[in-house]
């Protein structure tokens, strides 16, 4: 296990293991992963293989039973609660089930973090919120509640809320889940646009291989393949496509027979 911290690594997971309650099998099993400054990394894998759990561990929402997560070199497990909060201010996340506050309007969903975590005046907060809403093309929807919006609009609002505090690292949990191909493409373009403008380190968890391959080829994003709590392979689109690993090979080719389907039938 490499215990050194590279300056270029904004997030680094080292030997992390996580299991829910008394479950016999860990969801994340001695996993190592690093996310470099200003890079886009896709986390792909079958559903239920621990992508969301891994993102939540990296975001400090769950504490791993072994190993540690380093945010800009700071080990989360070793920090006191105040320092931990300060470090995690640099990290943001969008959620698979949106995580939007359903009792608040679109504008209030953005103003809430600004009110709680910054010293901005109400006028400054409003200005910041409206700027972000323009970026995600949600101007005019300020007074709507999340449940009055389409899935794509909710995803865009989730992205806006994740960006409102100007984080240096953003995790996107299945940002295109349940969306039609056009809306999916729109969301991905929005994520990449924001990444380019703000140079955030971006980790996107998805089950959609084509999406990851497409972006990886254009933007030199890396792809990490997660299976049974471990990263089986990490590399460029070509490296993933040419993988000799039988699990990765079956996944990228969508084969019905192979170790993945054998595991499922067992």
């Amino acid at each position, binding site marked *: 296990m490499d215990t050194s911290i590279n300056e270029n690594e904004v997030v680094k997971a080292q030997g992390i293991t996580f299991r829910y309650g008394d479950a016999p099998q860990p969801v994340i099993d001695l996993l190592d992963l690093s996310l470099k400054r200003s890079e886009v990394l896709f986390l792909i894998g079958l559903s239920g293989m621990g992508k969301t759990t891994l993102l939540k561990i990296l975001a400090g*929402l769950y504490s791993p039973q072994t190993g540690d997560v380093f945010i800009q070199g700071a080990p989360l497990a070793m920090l006191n609660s105040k320092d931990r909060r300060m470090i995690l*201010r640099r990290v943001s996340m969008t959620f698979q089930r949106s995580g939007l506050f359903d009792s608040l309007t679109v504008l209030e969903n953005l103003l809430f973090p600004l009110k709680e975590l910054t010293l901005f005046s109400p006028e400054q907060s409003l200005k910041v919120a409206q700027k972000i809403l323009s970026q995600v093309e949600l101007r005019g929807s300020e007074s709507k509640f999340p449940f009055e919006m389409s899935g794509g609009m909710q995803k865009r609002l989730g992205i806006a809320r994740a960006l409102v505090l100007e984080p240096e690292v953003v995790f996107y949990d299945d940002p295109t889940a349940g969306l039609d191909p056009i809306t999916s493409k729109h969301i991905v373009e929005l994520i990449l646009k924001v990444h380019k403008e703000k140079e955030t380190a971006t980790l996107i968890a998805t089950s959609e291989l084509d999406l990851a391959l497409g972006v990886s080829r254009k933007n030199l994003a890396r792809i990490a393949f997660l299976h049974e709590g471990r990263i089986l392979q990490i590399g460029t689109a070509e490296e993933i496509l040419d993988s000799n690993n039988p699990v990765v090979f079956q996944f990228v080719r969508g084969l019905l027979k192979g170790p993945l389907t054998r595991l499922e039938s067992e």
Partner: protein
Amino acid sequence: MYLLGVQSVPIIFVSLGFVGLMMILELAFHMRLVLKHDALVPAFSAVLMVRELGPVITCLLLTSRIGAGIAAEIGSMKVTEQLDALKMLSIDFIDYLVIPRWIGAVFSACTLTVLSIAVALFGGAFLATQKLGTSPGEYLNTVFFFVKFSDVVRCLIKAAIFGTLIPFIAAYQGFTCGTGSAAVGEAATQAVVRTSLSIIIADFILTYLFYAI
């Protein structure tokens, strides 16, 4: 406060009003049977209402209304990852979700208990004048003679403690609820069951302590 207290007024007033009427009928029947007179019916019914039934029934009704609601709301926030979003913002769940509900529940429990006892006593006074031939003035004189200030203080202490149990147990059920809509329903049910049991057990303990003091 509006959701926790004001919206609970109709169900609590109607229920306690009928409890007041029922107590007069029951006590009058048994007192006539055993003691051969019913002059102390207003006194007994008022003491029983202030010391026991007022806070207990009010808070049990509040539990079914707001306990289930708090558990379902927080459980649903967990299922839809709103709690994770709050945690990402470093917002303390207890400060943000529980304390305001606790303040609202304690205030609602105390005020609704006092008001519902008043409704029950007025209901009792009405029936006593009709059935027992007692005048309203006589009824209220007997009530104020037997119900001491310490009874009212104890009644409010009980209401405050029951009002504390409701949001804390319900919030705990919400925070520990599983995933899926069935789990949210289960959390709401468990919140009502566990809070109701806690109120009844706490009522026994408090009554025991009050008599011991």
